[in-house]
């Protein structure tokens, strides 16, 4: 990894983590119970399923001040709702392509599967993602992306269905 400059070293990124109620939120609970440490930069939000993850939430989070977003869910084939995490995966892949089209580093949005038993694994992954986003530096919204405002919810959703 390239060496970090002073600004990046002082920079504390804010990362929003979306978790599903059944696997990854429980993995985060288990990480706590196992006292696995990870950086305090992540703020977890709970859904019932990663399938609930509207790409609009990710864009709003980035726009609203997050430097990165971590999407988590049950492993493929282990979804509580059978197959909805595959839909999250599809949306994630499409959104990532759009991110680079907007000029964002696609690595700002990452996806990690974690089962309810993988507390330590999730903690490692959170640490990795936070460090990667720290290395990318702050996300300057206002000046870089004047076109952002034009992307309405309806268009975003159409593209991801």
């Amino acid at each position, binding site marked *: 990894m390239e060496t970090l400059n002073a600004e990046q070293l002082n920079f504390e990124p804010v990362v929003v983590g979306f978790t599903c109620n059944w696997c990854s*939120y429980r993995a985060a609970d288990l990480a*706590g119970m196992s006292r696995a440490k990870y950086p*305090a930069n992540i703020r977890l939000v709970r859904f019932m399923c990663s399938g609930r993850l509207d790409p609009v939430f990710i864009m709003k989070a980035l726009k609203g001040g997050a430097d990165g977003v971590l999407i988590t869910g049950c492993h493929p*084939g*282990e979804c509580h709702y059978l197959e909805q995490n595959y839909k999250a995966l599809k949306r994630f892949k499409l959104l990532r392509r759009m991110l680079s089209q907007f000029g964002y580093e696609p690595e700002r949005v990452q996806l990690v599967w974690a089962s309810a038993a993988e507390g330590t694994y999730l*903690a490692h992954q959170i640490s990795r993602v936070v460090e990667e986003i720290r290395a990318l530096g702050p996300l300057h*919204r206002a000046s870089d992306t004047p076109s952002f405002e034009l992307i309405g919810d309806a268009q975003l959703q159409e593209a991801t*269905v």
Partner: protein
Amino acid sequence: MKQERIGVYVCHCGSNIAGTVDVGQLSSWAADALEKRGVVVARDYKFMCSSLGQELIKSDIVELSLTRVVVAACSPHLHEKTFRTACQQAGLNPYLMEMVSLREHVAWVHSDKALATQKAKALISGAVERVALHEPLDPISVPIEATTLVVGAGISGIQAALEIADAGQKVVLVEREPSIGGHMAQLDKTFPTLDCSACILTPKMVTVGSHPNINLLTWSEVEAVDGFVGQFTVTIRKKARYVREDVCTGCGICMEKCPSKLIDQVYEAGLGYRSAIYRPFPQAIPKYPVIDKANCIYFQRGKCKACQLFCPTTPNAIDFEQEDQILQLTVGNIILATGYDLFDARRIPQYGYGRLANVFSSLEFERLCNAAGPTEGKILLRDGVSQPESVGIIHCVGSRDRNYNNYCSAICCMQSLKFAHLVKERTGAKVTNFYIDIRTPYKDYDEFYQHVLQEKVEFVRGRVAEVTDAARRPGEEGKLIIQVEDTFIGKQRRIPVDMVILSAGIEPRHDSKEVSRKFGISCNGSGFFTELHPKLDPVATMSKGIFIAGCAQGPKDIPASVVQGAAAAARVLGTIQQKSLDLEPVLAQVIDQKCSGCRICSNLCPFNAIGFDLERQISTINPALCQGCGTCVSACPSHAISGTQFSTEQILAQLHGLLAESFNGNGARTQSPAFSQAELV
């Protein structure tokens, strides 16, 4: 919009939270900084979940007329119910409470107190904004139909069915094979007590067959499952037996007279024969035979009917015109005890199973030992005449092996020790066990191991590389040579034996993933059904009303399978006793006025909850089938689907609160985020 009156309660959890998070600062900050967002009171207390802590919340709800409550304590998976109940007792709708996981998600995973407190503020801020948009909800109450469906009639399913039936409730027991009994019916002796498997199983089977509360459907399979806990509609295909159960006496003359004899791959594990009209074994329940259409001369060539000719009953019990029956039943709960498949040792070609005659699988050996088996209990080589003078037993075949299955199959050590004892006892042959580790936990298991050690059974520690018939040294001619690294002496060894037994592992049923989809439960990577909680809820699944038992959940031996069968039955009886069940009101709803009828949502629902109203040209969601994942909510291009408890507005409000607070006191940031309240909707 009327301003909500919100109370924020920060728990110390002793020093669990207070050790890492400045709880005092947190509560005074919440009272102060969040006042404009509706917080009228914020308190911290040593143990919020204690009755005194709950009392604090309750009296505030009453005295300060709180309309919303935020509890920042442990994970909602632990105490959400506690605090919801407290709110309800104080007259506040329980769903107007939101929890923040300060303990699991902050205090226990971070060490820097300032950063942890900062994060805690962000989380509380998010929860305060979110809870303001919560709506009062009522749990969904569903009536419980008393009949239970048990799928699979091995020992676990039998146990479950008997427990429920004995408690006076109706059970429908469905078995795919012509007889109940499962794998246990194939075994000879059971470890560690060496009691005869059939002797302990048959009485239970007979009870199942004659129990007034059990509707036994063998030679049947579940085709479809609809509905939800309390009211499942199951479609069962009762395959044609071509034998009339109302007249057949089970005399067995038809089986004797049937001219079509074939190798029995299922019950006799390929070692014995059966006729085309057959009953898997003499003690089979039910006693009626079944015609195997693919091998019946009449069905294949149009002539024969020997069974019909010799059938002594009037009217004749053989009915070639019988057709499959489709049954539709309503059941309240379902227990899946679909069992396991034995690992096919052909997949490890270097062990020679299927190629070298005297390499046997564990199930084949069980049949060899069984007095009712093809050799009447004599341990003989494949020629059917000679007794082995030396036997090698290979453990962990297909288990604990990253090429096949990573997991331990749990039964193989004890099973191999049992084989070693039986070979010693019946033939006096020299027995060598090849193992990686010997695992003998549980009652009397290690004592059995010690007993086998004293019988002068040899043990070589090392994973076997190869079983071959290519002799290289004198004394190896005509033998099977086991090539192994003896890890205790650090040397390669070649051990010639007459017979090799492969202690094959337990695998999920080949169609377990299909079955899990049919019943709407999940499987782990290997294909075993996933329990709700690995320790505290080992028989429930994430689908309410569906329970799992036996090897379908993971490898286990007979005692453990029986325990799980009984445990699943206890859980089912518990819900039947309640007569109705309250479900969490997490649902998607179509807002009729907004729906354009595009049907994008229809294909997204794996539970078929989304229908289409042709007349009004809009989608409809069946609340009984909706599981509340919210995938359709996020996919609707018209925002015409709303999700209770997880609405777009609630989530965006939470994000807003979370991020707005993330920047206060964060030195690296000067610019405030462009995320105004106006954009939320």
